[in-house]
């Protein structure tokens, strides 16, 4: 575990509601190693974005971390005071949001936003910061960066804006980037470009990435490891190849099967009945049990812990007894 850059331990995020508290993240644990790209998949509402927000400390009140620990290297960061956390953000952990159209401040130029970010984290004078900004834009593949740096966000197309966003995230040379669905708002064709940029930057800078998405294609293409989330819990974590080829958790299996394939023609897709439970109605035991076609009696009562199997980690009673 010592080699992990980010280590999340039993993270619980709660939203106080009328009478109860909603547990949006329930005992989430995972690690990211330096330079590694960890994918986070799961259906809408599974808690992917919340995990990212919790790590960088941007949970929106009344949401809060109820228990658990988040370690960045040797530093525990889930209880840092605001100012320390702020210094961390952008410098050690950066975040990219889904919508490039709304992520940039519309009334500041790209230069304004980049230079400010750079100077917040690096001791550079205006000129040097600007040079660095141009270099960053260059790196993420903005043509004629020098000319376009003084443009406003609305003068860029969607794909270009997402590149700017990536440049901004990279400005403080962070060790970890949390990318929350960086390509969902973009076209398939542009998607591939952005994923490429992201991958390249990580390799070049040795940055670790937590890539949140619900697109298995993106996961398969970009990630080293994948965590599958279901109803605020991690259902399975493992090597991307393992998960794609040999999913263990029945949910993952269903998920993989429900994606139409272009290589084979099937008449009916594999279909998981029902839908993910709402946070206020998570069934006892395994959250997936009402939809599971391999349900065991105990699934309805006892919650499975994440156990280690030879192919990764899975939270499912089917694999109980597998070697830890």
């Amino acid at each position, binding site marked *: 575990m010592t080699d992990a850059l980010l280590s999340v331990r039993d993270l619980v995020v709660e939203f106080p509601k009328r009478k109860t508290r909603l547990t949006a993240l329930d005992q989430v644990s995972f690690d990211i190693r330096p330079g590694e790209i960890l994918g986070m998949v799961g*259906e809408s509402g599974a808690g992917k974005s919340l995990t990212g927000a919790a790590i960088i400390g941007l949970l929106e009140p009344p949401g809060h971390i109820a228990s658990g620990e988040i370690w960045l290297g040797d530093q525990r960061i889930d209880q840092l005071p605001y100012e320390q956390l702020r210094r961390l953000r952008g410098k050690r952990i950066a975040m990219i949001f889904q919508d490039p159209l709304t992520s940039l401040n519309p009334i500041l130029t790209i230069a304004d936003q980049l230079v400010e970010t750079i100077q917040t984290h690096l001791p550079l004078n205006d000129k040097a910061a600007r040079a660095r900004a141009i270099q960053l834009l260059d790196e993420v593949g903005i043509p004629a960066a020098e000319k376009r740096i003084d443009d406003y966000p609305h003068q860029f197309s969607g794909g270009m804006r997402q590149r700017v966003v990536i440049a901004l995230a990279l400005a403080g040379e962070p060790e970890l980037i949390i990318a929350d669905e960086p390509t969902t708002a973009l076209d398939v064709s542009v998607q591939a470009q952005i994923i490429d940029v992201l991958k390249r930057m990580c390799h070049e800078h040795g940055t670790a990435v937590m890539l949140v998405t*619900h697109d298995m294609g993106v996961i398969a293409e970009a990630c080293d490891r994948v965590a599958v989330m279901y109803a605020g819990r991690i259902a399975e974590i493992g090597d991307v190849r393992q998960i794609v080829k040999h999913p263990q958790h029945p949910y993952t299996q269903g998920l993989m099967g429900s994606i139409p*394939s272009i290589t084979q023609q099937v008449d009916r897709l594999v279909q998981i009945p029902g*839908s993910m439970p709402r946070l206020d109605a998570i069934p006892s035991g395994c959250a997936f049990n009402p939809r599971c076609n391999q349900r065991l009696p105990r699934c309805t009562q006892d919650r499975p812990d994440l156990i280690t199997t030879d192919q990764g980690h899975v939270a499912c009673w089917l694999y109980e007894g597998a070697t830890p």
Partner: protein
Amino acid sequence: MSLSVRQEYPDMKQPLLQVQNLSCHFDVSKPWLNRVIESEPQRFLTAVDQVSFSVNQGETFALVGESGSGKSTIAKLIVDLIHPSSGEIRFDGKILRETRGEAFKTLRRRIQMIFQDPFASLNPRWRVGDIIAEPIHAFGLATSQAQVTRTVEELLDKVGLAGRDRHKYPHEFSGGQRQRIAIARALSAQPDFLVCDEPTSALDVSVQAQILNLMRDLQDEFGLTYLFISHDLSVVKHMADRIGVLYLGSMVEDAPSEQLFSQPAHPYTRMLLDAIPDHEMSGRRRKPVTGEIPSPINPPSGCTFHPRCEYADTLCKEQRPAVVTHNDSQVACWAVEQARIPVKGLQSV
């Protein structure tokens, strides 16, 4: 009214929908005064440009293309939500826009649509039962309230919901369930033809699978014909019998599904196919896509795809390619026509 009884069509291969040279321009000019002062001409956005295709009874025709390529516009043109600038749309041999009275009402009833956003396509203030019953009332398909209720319950049952759900409001349902309600509403008009504009793109894959399966079941049961719009090629491949590829409002290729995937002719089709993420990790290399889709207001000259095309030459820049038919497919590409791109089976033309 009973749902299971359907008019039978004598020839299943009869084209139910024929679209010919359909074009749609939107006036995106600046206000008149600005134009005068800045001496700018009036500007039009060509959303759909000379598109022709036909859909056979009982088949699924899919339209694919990048965002802004005109898919939704075609869908709206077909269901008569907007009016074409030129070209004609024939449904069952009749032109919707030229029919009047009862015939118009009947035609209108026979073409229904399922929208992309299941959250916006249901009126949040209406109960599900009333939503589904709206077409029944509007088209006068029931004679009594009891009949309406029965039909609504039957429909809910058909799409995998419970009859008592009709008392609930849309917000009490998940996205997938709402899309089922939307489908039930479309079905309540007893249509023959369903235009489905990205019906699953707002849904999670597991729910998408449910909806796609449901749509297939309904097609089998009712003999429905689909115009299926999606940007997800793998979904399209799963659903469609025939696929049309749109680029900047023009149809660049129109081919049977298998053929399109196995022998893509147009460079754009190839590019799209190459860009499909390999989620199965079959080891297929994904080719990076070059460039971005140009503005439809000022489309490139000649073949609109030429700036992004590796096969483009001067002819492509200057002249718009004609549509070439081969086998069962049509392609609009100079390079294909001039055989600069090797396409299996095309040489025979």
